[in-house]
């Protein structure tokens, strides 16, 4: 619950931050300046709408790059109005980002410092440059802090807190283990692939998680494909169960079920789902054949 609370505050902070450049925009000397300020306000406001406590929408690189470009443009167009914002580079560098983007941010920071330094006496320029470099390094060390954690953990973390939905990489690891277990236990296990519409995806993912038993894991393969590992005492009951699940899930585009013992690779299954023309046709054939 504490985490939800944090997201609310973060959203408030983003909205407040969006309000300030919007208030500054009317006092601009020319159109470019005003436009840039409005864009900055817009970026912050849209970010405030998008922020949520899950891995559903990892931040896209172009979206993350935009504030750096905006800051550079603002410092280049109106160096006499916003010199104070040069220090914001230390904060931008602090954000979790790929290594090449850190390098780009450092270059842009150097460029805008050089632009501002023109108007300063040389000793002040040198001193400010050294201080800025120190702050950038401090900021970078903060961002590197989280970087190794992020890459590895993303591949095994489930996608939203409280939802039993795992990423595709996890299915690759679970598949052989689950197959071995099912053989030992002597039960029927199958991998069910579901193709839903993009817009209904999260709704149906939630339905799938509530409809399956807690030991039957669910996975997100891509933006519109869900997978689940279902267990039943035998093939007949599995089919019965699948039909029930389908009825409860509501309309889906395609479904493919394969007994775990027959699966060669996950990629093959996904291709087969891609080729499949009927909604559920071949699944049954595979089942009995």
């Amino acid at each position, binding site marked *: 619950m504490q*985490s939800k609370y*944090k*997201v609310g505050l*973060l959203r408030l*902070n983003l909205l*407040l*931050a969006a309000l*300030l450049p919007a*208030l*500054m925009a009317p*006092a601009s000397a020319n159109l470019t300046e005003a436009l840039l300020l409005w864009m900055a306000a817009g970026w*912050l406001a849209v970010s405030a709408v998008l922020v949520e*406590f*899950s*891995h559903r929408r990892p931040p896209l690189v172009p979206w993350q790059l935009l504030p750096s470009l905006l800051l550079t443009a603002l410092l280049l167009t109106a160096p006499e*109005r*916003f*010199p*104070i*914002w*040069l*220090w*914001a580079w*230390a*904060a*931008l560098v*602090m*954000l*979790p980002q790929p290594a090449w983007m850190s390098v780009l941010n450092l270059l842009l920071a150097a460029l805008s410092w050089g632009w501002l330094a023109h108007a*300063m006496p040389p*000793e*002040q320029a040198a*001193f*400010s440059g*050294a201080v800025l470099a120190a*702050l950038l*390094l*401090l*900021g970078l*060390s*903060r961002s*590197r*802090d*989280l970087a190794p*954690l992020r890459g590895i*953990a993303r591949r*095994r*973390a*489930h996608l*939203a*807190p409280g939802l*039993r939905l795992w990423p595709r990489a996890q299915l690759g690891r679970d598949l052989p*283990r689950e197959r*071995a*277990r099912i053989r030992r*236990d002597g039960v029927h296990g199958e991998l069910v692939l579901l193709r839903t519409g993009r817009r209904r995806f999260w709704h149906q993912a939630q339905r799938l998680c509530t409809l399956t*038993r*807690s*030991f039957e894991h669910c996975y997100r393969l891509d933006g519109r494909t869900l997978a689940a590992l279902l*267990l039943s005492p035998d093939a007949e009951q599995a089919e019965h169960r699948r039909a029930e699940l389908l009825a409860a899930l509501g309309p889906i585009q395609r479904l493919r079920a394969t007994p775990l013992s027959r699966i060669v690779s996950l990629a093959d299954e996904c291709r087969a789902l891609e080729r499949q023309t009927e909604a559920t046709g071949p699944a049954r054939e595979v089942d009995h054949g």
Partner: protein
Amino acid sequence: MAELQHTRLHAGLYALAALLLVVQAAWFYLVGDYDRILLPALLAPLLITAALMRLGQPETARLSAYLVLVCGYLLVAMELPAQSSLAPFWLGLPPVLTLLLLPLGPAMLLNLTLTPLWLLLGENLLDLDLALGYLSLVMVAGLAPWEILHQRSLLQATDPLDEECDAIRRSALHDRLHSECERAALLHQRLAVLVIHLPQLEMAGEQFGPGARRALLGSLCDTVARCSRDHDLLGREGDADFWLVLPDTSESGALLVRQRLEEALHRAVLLDTGPVETRLTDCHLRHGESPGHFMQRLQATVQRQVNG
């Protein structure tokens, strides 16, 4: 390792800042600006002290951040009235420095309370546009540490693995144990859990540092991974308490695993702490027992183990 790098980088940066101040003082001397030599000359030894403190215990390390912050504040406060044309530029330094050195909460509070002070300090700084610019800098720069916090707590809420070792964390362990109980009930199987306690862990951390602690945890996780099957599940219930969930395992099977594990762990000798000591107890899911009740029984076993 990362922590150590961090410490060294920070200490190095503080020392470099001290050097920068010495250079500045020398510059003032060369151009004959004798009035302004005093401050950088006084602050340089202070920064050296901060660099040394950063290398010390965590408590003094935190103090060193405040020391650096005070130095930065004093420098900017002296600079602001002196040069009116560059004053708006230097005004941006204190809030960003605060955010870089302090945790988010105190930093934001300090920045917002100091806003009027900074704006009044300069001669011609009381200007709406500049005030707005300062506030947006405070707000926008504050978003960066906030995003880091957000990402970290998200990972904590969704990543099943513990931060220190290869066991799964407590919340994930409880979820998985619940689902394994359900599975065992459905398939009419047995379920056993080995409750493992590492009595040396606390002592290892206190006496030999985090490295020894990690080595002990790592050796437990590796040994368990070697002695158990692919679908057995090691989870961290408390700081030094672990549960090894053994699906479809009878009482004699669990006993066998326990003996094997005890032997293997006793053979593992670590540099600082010597042979790994463990206390192991096996518990079994009773027929018709609810997962909640089973979990309570396991927690009672953990308590007994910790006490002796």
